[in-house]
């Protein structure tokens, strides 16, 4: 089974509307990263949330980490065409302070309708 589950798998939203993407881990989270990917391109870093519960915002994107639920949510306010793409959550599931490879969800494909 997938260690990181993202929902929904795909999302079609009218421009200007708000939306939320969720990422749930089956294991303890030691760090949670949100990335955006456009087809044929690499991953663009959005935000990083540390263990202990945290909320960060950048422009119209807010990410939260619920430590008890081992879950993170990414919320976009007043969506724009530039928000379209694939959103990936990545997590460090290994204890310890050293760098580790991230475990990723399958991604949420976001389409913004004009």
């Amino acid at each position, binding site marked *: 089974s997938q260690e*990181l589950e993202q929902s929904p798998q795909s999302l079609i939203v009218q421009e200007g509307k708000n939306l939320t993407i969720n990422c749930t881990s089956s294991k303890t989270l*030691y*760090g949670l*990263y949100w*990335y955006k990917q456009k087809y*044929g*391109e*690499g*991953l*663009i*870093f959005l935000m*990083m949330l*540390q263990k202990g519960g945290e909320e960060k915002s950048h422009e119209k994107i807010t990410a939260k980490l619920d430590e008890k639920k081992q879950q993170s949510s990414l919320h976009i306010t007043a969506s724009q065409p530039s928000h379209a793409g694939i959103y*990936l959550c*990545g997590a*460090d599931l290994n204890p*310890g*302070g*050293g*760098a*580790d*490879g*991230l*475990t*990723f*969800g*399958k*991604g949420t494909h976001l389409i913004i309708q004009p």
Partner: protein
Amino acid sequence: GAGVSQSPRYKVAKRGQDVALRCDPISGHVSLFWYQQALGQGPEFLTYFQNEAQLDKSGLPSDRFFAERPEGSVSTLKIQRTQQEDSAVYLCASSLAGLVWNEQFFGPGTRLTVL
């Protein structure tokens, strides 16, 4: 400031051929990661270097996969005797130091197609 670069961007190989994929991390970045991303999936971790030391290769799918970073900067991922199931995008990422809280910067990837 250049980001992570990868070459080639696209590679087509016949089944059984060997391929070598190159990653140039951001200058000064200690940690380097390789990931494999199949179509419609999230990236899957392959291996990790801290400087020239390969600290984790638990994600390499078979002994046909080999990675090196001899001088602690540029890295090469080599796949021997390619198979069709090796077709994927291979992503490289680097981070400043060997700490879990450092952001991983990703390159554009190399799309490998094995015929």
